[in-house]
């Protein structure tokens, strides 16, 4: 039980740390990410149910890009556009996207930790998978954050281009893992590293290009 609680606290750590900073913008944005995570599970469940009921075969591609990536990135984008509002400075947009992703990933890990314990109990496998979620899916979400808003930060891009980029990145990551190739983990981690580097350049670009 203590181990389970420790992992739950660890999963929620980013949200807890942001909360005590007292920065209203960061707290609101992070909580929007948390809300987006909750909403995305409902949407994904509905999608799976709807597709199954209508007899459509849920291929790996359909599941990775449409069932998982689209609701998750779409709801994060919606949270940023509607609730947080796109800030006037490119740098602030990218910062908001990262904190939204932090909240989303923390909530996701929190819920998965509960689910993992129900399946595995507090065994070594529970610990391994809980930590795995921090080093891979969490980092994947953080990498996708700036990609999601890159369309707003890079001159000449359209806003939805960023959403499309994040969809492709997230879908490819999930598809690679679902395919269960021998090298799936390596390819997925390489994707994460590439996403993090691309996101760093988005941030760098957003701070050097003046927005209108």
């Amino acid at each position, binding site marked *: 039980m203590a181990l389970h609680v420790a992992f739950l606290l660890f999963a929620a750590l980013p949200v807890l740390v942001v909360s005590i900073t007292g920065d209203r913008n960061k707290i609101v944005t992070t909580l929007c990410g948390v809300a987006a995570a909750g909403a995305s599970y409902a949407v994904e469940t509905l999608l799976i149910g709807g597709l199954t009921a209508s007899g459509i075969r849920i291929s790996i591609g359909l599941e990775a890009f449409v069932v998982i990536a689209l609701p998750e990135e779409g709801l994060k984008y919606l949270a940023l556009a509607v609730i947080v509002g796109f800030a006037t400075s490119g740098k602030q947009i990218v*910062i908001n996207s990262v904190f939204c992703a932090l909240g989303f990933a923390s909530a996701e890990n929190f819920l998965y930790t509960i689910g993992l314990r129900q399946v595995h109990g507090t065994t070594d496998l529970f610990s391994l998978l809980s930590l795995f979620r921090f080093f891979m899916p969490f980092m994947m979400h953080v990498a996708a954050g700036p990609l999601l808003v890159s369309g707003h930060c890079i001159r000449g891009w359209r806003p939805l281009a960023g959403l499309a980029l994040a969809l492709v990145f997230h879908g490819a990551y999930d598809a690679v893992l679902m395919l269960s190739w021998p090298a799936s983990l390596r390819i997925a*981690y390489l994707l994460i590293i590439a996403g993090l580097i691309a996101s760093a350049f988005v941030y760098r670009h957003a701070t050097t290009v003046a927005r209108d």
Partner: protein
Amino acid sequence: MDTKWFYAEGNKPIGPISFEEVVRLIKASPGERHFVWTEGMAEWHEARTLPAFADALRSLPPPLTAAVTESAGRAVGGPSGSPAADSRLLHPWRRYFARVFDVYVFTLCGGFALGVMVPDIFSESSTSSRVEDQLFTILAFAAYVPFEAFCLYAFGSTLGKTLYGVMLHPSGGRIVFSQALKRSALVWLKGWGLALPIVSLFTLIIAYNRLKRNGSTSWDDDLKWSVAHSQFGTSRWVGILACWAGITFVIVVLAYLGKQ
């Protein structure tokens, strides 16, 4: 311009005040560093680095560095050996722990990546595990050099520096990758002694004494960078402890899983 600003007077924020009032306060103390904040900014920024203040502060000289004030003091017959900066503003331990935190996080994430890419690298071998651990530490510090340079180039800071409120200011205003790489390499060499056992102890002590005496480290003097520190309140303390608790938890779990 009707945007309201906050101006940092020592550790106290003054505001909201008008842009003109901020410029007046800055012009009253030329040669010093002035930090401002307005809505939409994630953190305090030095006024002269902001485009909004570029025109208004064009005629003012840049802030005096510790090296300049020390040289000026000697040139006019000032006392030799007098401290070039207020030692209360130096915070060597914050800088030290910020870097240690960064290296820990980098090592954990990098180690995980290595384990995924090349699983055999962590297989049991017949050599002493202490030797392997020490080699891994040395390599981790070396590998951290380009990673830190990239973070400074891309974000202007690192996770540990942000957590501990340590801000780097290059001489040219904006961090260029080559300069960041040079600085990181110099810190690794002169500050951490290449992370070699015993050697690093001496280099750290020498760097600490130099910082206390001169107000800056040798690598910052070489590259003409300056280091500032933001306020250290209760919330920052709690955040730091929480992050260290998280890292400790990960290490303990990994160690336990490794023994199974």
